[in-house]
């Protein structure tokens, strides 16, 4: 087989075949909104094989054809830069979707068309969803869609994703395109470059690369542009001699042009795009366009002082929203689960060990999960809202200067913010960071962001020991968390992650009024990823802990152990806690505290409920017991310890899936170590002061 054109011959009209359709586009073009509308919200979120970037797919049936839609990460061009982009390109090249839909932001045709050109050069069957035409109209843009369609020889469907306009036409277009031949498209790069392309193509024709997924002109173009992935591919197949010949051709061309080949080729593409837009796009003058409106808002929102004040205020409101609004709902859920459902399970006519397994193990685990949901949901609602207005892009800008001081880029601020809600989605959200170094460093410090699960512990202890200044003391704990994160970042900058962050390149989208549906869909997606990842682990761990509490070195203790501290003190958990008790000598914590910290590894809020079991009191009476066995100082050092000591089970599992077991264990050990030191520092410094 020699180097044939494009993919396998398309089998026509087979209605049972699954048709793969990829959706691509620049960031912020409304891709996810359109994807949700196309799939009717029935997306399935999984992982790309081998890497942990989310893969969103959805199946729909159009006129009897089963179509699988795959949402690819947002990209600017086909040269990969971040993990996301590598995946998008790989998918198009290797999995060869039958059709690619590119979502285009109609208000910014020039930038979006660059990707179009690259896709067309690959000869993929392309449909363009010309999205945000409502905004384009407001901007005074008149786009001659028919003209553009004829010129490029592809289907262009105008859409307004948030209002579901044009979605039907888009699905019809998929069917129409199925049986049409792939487009032929060529940009003239000028005589010198064209000649070089032809020379490379002639070399390529003699080798077996038909399965690369693109035509030889495309490969030749990418070889000219120093595409490292393609070069790697050739090397893997032992085609070094081809590469050598290409290098010669390039050197030849370089001397003739006297300028960077790559730059010239990109310039040619932009020149072509400009010739298109000059011909098919007319600009009417409008009084106040989105651009001028956005500019005026940005004058204040990115202002060094006012902008920062607004940012901090917004942050404050975001957390107020997620905590205050959720707390009544959390209370309700708590009463419902640990009260009603719990006692209901206990009354079921089941063997005690089974009903205890259900009520004290499984339900306890499910309860922990459910109680987080209101809080997380409101936080995600807030973040998705800010994201969709376009404000988060400004937040990145505002914080870059500060994050740079600890060797990170401004993009890191968003994962860190999410971390205050829950560390699990925070770690997942680091995927968009282009830079691997930034990503690892961020994951290392996310667990120091005090998540909402730790708040009940602070509330309990501050209520007992710091009634006067409760808010202030809790705030100081958060502050210690952030400070530890900063110190850690600085430290690891020096030790492990040498050098500086490579920074970020980010689109500044215009300010928009977000669509409610889109925000809810996004928040739900994030909650789902938390439930899927954390859910099973928390429930399973709860069951394991349950088992370790009712069994001990002597054997089965009976389910009463969970309510009876004497029995419980003979359980495995207690034995282990007693074993490591000497380690915590300086803190004066007895085995019960240590046991509850062990429980807390599952989910930190469990510390409170297990303390009440271990001291054999109702949660309401816990304060009296605590006030006798702690001093304010030891209580404070315990709070610091619980803040820092280890990421919870769900976070650890997420870390493992993102950066591997070895790194996760390292993080856990490091954080235990830091927690120990900080708690000790609190004790000794406090001891000196008091």
């Amino acid at each position, binding site marked *: 087989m020699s180097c044939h054109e494009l993919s396998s011959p398309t089998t026509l009209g087979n209605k049972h075949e699954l048709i793969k359709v990829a959706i691509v586009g620049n960031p912020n073009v409304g891709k996810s909104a359109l994807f949700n509308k196309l799939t009717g919200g029935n997306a399935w979120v999984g992982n790309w094989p081998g890497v942990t970037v989310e893969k969103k797919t959805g199946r729909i049936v159009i006129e009897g054809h089963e179509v699988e839609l795959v949402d690819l990460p947002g990209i*600017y*061009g086909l*040269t*990969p*830069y971040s993990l996301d982009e590598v995946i998008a390109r790989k998918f198009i090249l290797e999995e060869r979707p039958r059709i690619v839909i590119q979502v285009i932001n109609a208000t*910014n045709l*020039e*930038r979006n068309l*660059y990707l179009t050109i690259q896709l067309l050069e690959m000869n993929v069957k392309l449909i363009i969803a010309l999205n945000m035409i409502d905004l384009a109209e407001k901007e005074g843009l008149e786009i001659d869609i028919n003209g553009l369609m004829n010129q490029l020889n592809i289907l262009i469907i105008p859409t307004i994703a948030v209002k579901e306009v044009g979605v039907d036409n888009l699905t019809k277009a998929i069917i129409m395109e199925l049986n049409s031949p792939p487009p032929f498209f060529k940009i003239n790069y000028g005589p010198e470059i064209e000649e070089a392309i032809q020379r490379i193509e002639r070399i390529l024709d003699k080798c077996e690369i038909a399965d690369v997924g693109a035509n030889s002109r495309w490969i030749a173009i990418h070889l000219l542009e*120093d595409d*490292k992935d393609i070069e790697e591919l050739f090397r893997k197949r032992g085609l070094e001699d081809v590469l050598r010949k290409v290098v010669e051709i390039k050197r030849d061309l370089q001397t003739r042009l006297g300028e*960077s080949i*790559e*730059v010239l080729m*990109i*310039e040619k593409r*932009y020149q072509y*795009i*400009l010739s298109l837009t000059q011909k098919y796009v007319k600009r009417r003058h409008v009084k106040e366009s989105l651009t001028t409106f*956005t*500019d005026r808002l*940005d004058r204040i929102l*990115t202002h*060094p002082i006012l902008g920062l004040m607004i940012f901090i205020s917004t942050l404050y409101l975001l957390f107020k929203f997620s905590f205050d609004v959720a707390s009544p709902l959390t209370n309700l859920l708590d009463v419902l689960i640990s009260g009603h459902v719990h006692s209901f399970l206990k009354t079921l006519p089941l063997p005690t060990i089974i009903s205890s397994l259900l009520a004290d193990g499984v339900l306890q685990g499910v309860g922990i999960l459910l109680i987080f949901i209101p809080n997380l949901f409101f936080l995600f609602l807030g973040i998705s809202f800010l994201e969709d207005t376009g404000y988060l*892009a400004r937040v*990145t*800008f505002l914080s*870059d*200067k500060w994050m*740079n001081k600890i060797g990170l*880029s*401004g*993009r890191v601020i968003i994962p860190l913010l999410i971390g205050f809600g829950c560390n699990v989605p925070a770690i997942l959200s680091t995927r968009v960071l*282009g830079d691997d170094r930034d990503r690892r460093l961020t994951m290392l410090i996310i667990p120091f962001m005090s998540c909402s699960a730790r708040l009940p512990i602070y509330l309990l202890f501050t209520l007992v020991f710091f009634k006067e200044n409760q808010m202030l003391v809790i705030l100081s704990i958060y502050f210690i968390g952030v400070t530890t994160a900063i110190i850690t970042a600085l430290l690891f900058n020096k030790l492990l992650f040498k050098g*500086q*962050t*490579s*920074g*970020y*390149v*980010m*689109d*500044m989208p215009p300010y928009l009024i977000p669509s409610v549906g889109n925000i809810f869909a996004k928040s739900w997606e994030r909650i789902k990823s938390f439930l899927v990842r954390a859910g099973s682990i928390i429930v399973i761990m709860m069951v394991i802990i349950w088992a370790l509490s009712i069994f001990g070195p002597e054997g089965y203790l009976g389910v009463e152990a969970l309510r009876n501290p004497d029995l419980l003190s003979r359980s495995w958990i207690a034995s282990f806690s007693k074993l490591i008790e000497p380690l915590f000598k300086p803190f004066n914590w007895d085995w019960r505290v240590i046991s509850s910290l062990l429980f807390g590894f599952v989910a930190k809020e469990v510390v409170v409920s297990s303390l009440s079991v271990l001291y054999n009191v109702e949660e309401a009476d816990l304060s009296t017991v605590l006030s006798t066995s702690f001093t304010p100082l030891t209580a404070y050092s315990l709070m610091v310890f619980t803040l820092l000591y280890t990421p919870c089970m769900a976070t650890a599992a997420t870390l493992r899936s993102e950066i591997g077991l070895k790194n996760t264990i390292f993080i856990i050990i490091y954080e235990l170590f830091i927690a120990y030191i900080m708690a000790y520092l609190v004790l000794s410094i406090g001891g000196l002061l008091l």
Partner: protein
Amino acid sequence: MGDNSADTYTGLFPLSIIEEGKTVKVVKIIGGRGLVRRLYEIGLLPGAEIEVVRNSKHGPVIIRNKITGTFSLGYGVAKKIMVEVMQ
């Protein structure tokens, strides 16, 4: 010329030190391939004219390219873009 501030800029400067409101011409980008390529693709080619919309000095910048639109560049990126100030 009469414009003092323009005189203070002759030759090549990193984008990170250019004052807000100035229009500059990209001369070259120093950096890893991935980054350079990314910047090229969003229109920051050598020779391209861009406007500095915001510059927080030793921090990130916001720039506008007439063709490709508005972007925010982290400090780490901005100091790698060498530019010439246009009169």
